[in-house]
């Protein structure tokens, strides 16, 4: 059964298409003029704009830094034919620095991409059973339900979910918070009001918070309380799987949320 996601596509989805388009344009330009300066400058501009947009969204400086390095690197590759003080000797260090930065920031870059992808899967799973669209957004956390778990169980569950990069787990004295977001990165450790989370307190109370940014990523204004309740149910189900030692089912169910 093919189900359509109720979420808008991620911004990063344009990346592979843009790369294909710019390389094709570059090849065409190279065939016609011998060098592809215009395509290279446009390609470099694309990297820089993408870096700025992603930085604005995730608040991670990594995106801005990589965007600027790869964007100016692409310009450098062509500018050396037109600017006297630029050459292959200046271009190679630029490439080395760019690749070095990519290697050094890979854990943050990849970690955030994985967290974001899993956040999309969680929201897809939660929205599957929400069919009404009457909005009702509020930035208040939703009191989902009360359930039973031991302190060790919930901490173990948080470690599992955090270890698999499904969420960013925050273990506090009074509660365990599982944070995720399609906007500001949870790795940035922002104010919890700005991202989505499910919190489990020591008394067994579960509350769900969906950030305004994440809610606006839905194509429709889904009925907010139903969406929160459904997201709470997803986490309750995952916790039950974990308690029964069925962690594999969490991964399988999460994968089914990929659309």
């Amino acid at each position, binding site marked *: 059964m093919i189900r359509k996601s109720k979420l808008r596509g991620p911004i990063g989805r344009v990346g592979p298409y843009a790369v294909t388009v710019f390389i094709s344009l570059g090849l065409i330009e190279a065939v016609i003029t011998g060098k592809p300066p215009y395509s290279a400058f446009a390609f470099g501009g694309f990297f820089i704009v993408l870096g700025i947009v992603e930085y604005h969204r995730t608040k991670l400086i990594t995106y801005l830094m990589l965007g600027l390095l790869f964007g100016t690197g692409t310009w450098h590759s062509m500018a050396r034919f037109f600017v006297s003080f630029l050459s292959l000797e200046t271009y190679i260090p630029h490439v080395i620095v760019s690749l070095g930065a990519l290697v050094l920031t890979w854990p943050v870059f990849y970690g955030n991409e994985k967290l974001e992808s899993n956040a999309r899967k969680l929201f897809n799973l939660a929205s599957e059973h929400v069919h009404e669209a009457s909005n*009702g957004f509020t930035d*208040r956390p939703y009191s989902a339900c009360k359930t039973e778990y031991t302190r060790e169980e919930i901490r173990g569950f948080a470690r599992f979910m955090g270890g698999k990069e499904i969420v960013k787990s925050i273990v506090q004295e009074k*509660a365990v918070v599982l944070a995720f977001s399609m906007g500001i990165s949870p790795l940035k450790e922002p104010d919890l*009001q700005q991202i989505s989370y499910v919190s489990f307190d020591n008394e067994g109370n579960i509350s769900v918070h969906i950030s305004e940014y994440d809610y606006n990523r839905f194509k429709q204004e889904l009925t907010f309380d*139903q969406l*929160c309740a459904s997201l709470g149910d997803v986490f309750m189900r995952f916790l039950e799987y974990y308690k029964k030692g069925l962690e594999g089912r969490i991964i399988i169910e999460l994968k089914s949320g990929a659309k």
Partner: protein
Amino acid sequence: MDFETAAKLGAYFSKDYAEEVFRLLVNYKDISASEVASRLNLHIQTAQDFLEAMTSLGILIKKEVYEKKRPYFRYSLKKKKIAMDIDLASLLKQKQPEGKLSKKIRESKDSEARFTTARYDPYFSSVVIWIGEGRDRKERKINLTIPQGKFLFHLPFPTAEFLTIAEIMQKSGVHKIHSPEILDIVELLENYGVIKVK
């Protein structure tokens, strides 16, 4: 004594000349406003206002007398002891809150209120609401008691089913003893359009 009378009495008693005026009233059989003013070096209007206020509160009595056909008032003490007895229970807004607890409520759509959680505890510590229009629009922060914070944490969302105040109190584990403060915050937020009543 009601609170309004007590407040008025308190305001006049706090004047720095109040004790001196009463000293004159205790020592004189009766006295006029001009005599008080000249004796205490006050403006006659100040003395007049004070004596009139005490008369309206039933502490003094005034008698109209004539001096060369010109009438004026002489004031004397009606009682030499003043007891301030205020029943604060009369300030209780909802004397029988049970009826009000059956009111069905939920959060209003687009209320623009901002609720702040008390760290990771399942209750709010404050609510910020916007009041006024245009350039006069300003924020008003209301700090909540723990029962109020717990109650608002469980307030139904704008698209959820309405619940009675009693049901929300039960859901949030707030004891009936806190009913008056819950009803107070509900009334306030209802006036600011944050809470909708069915």
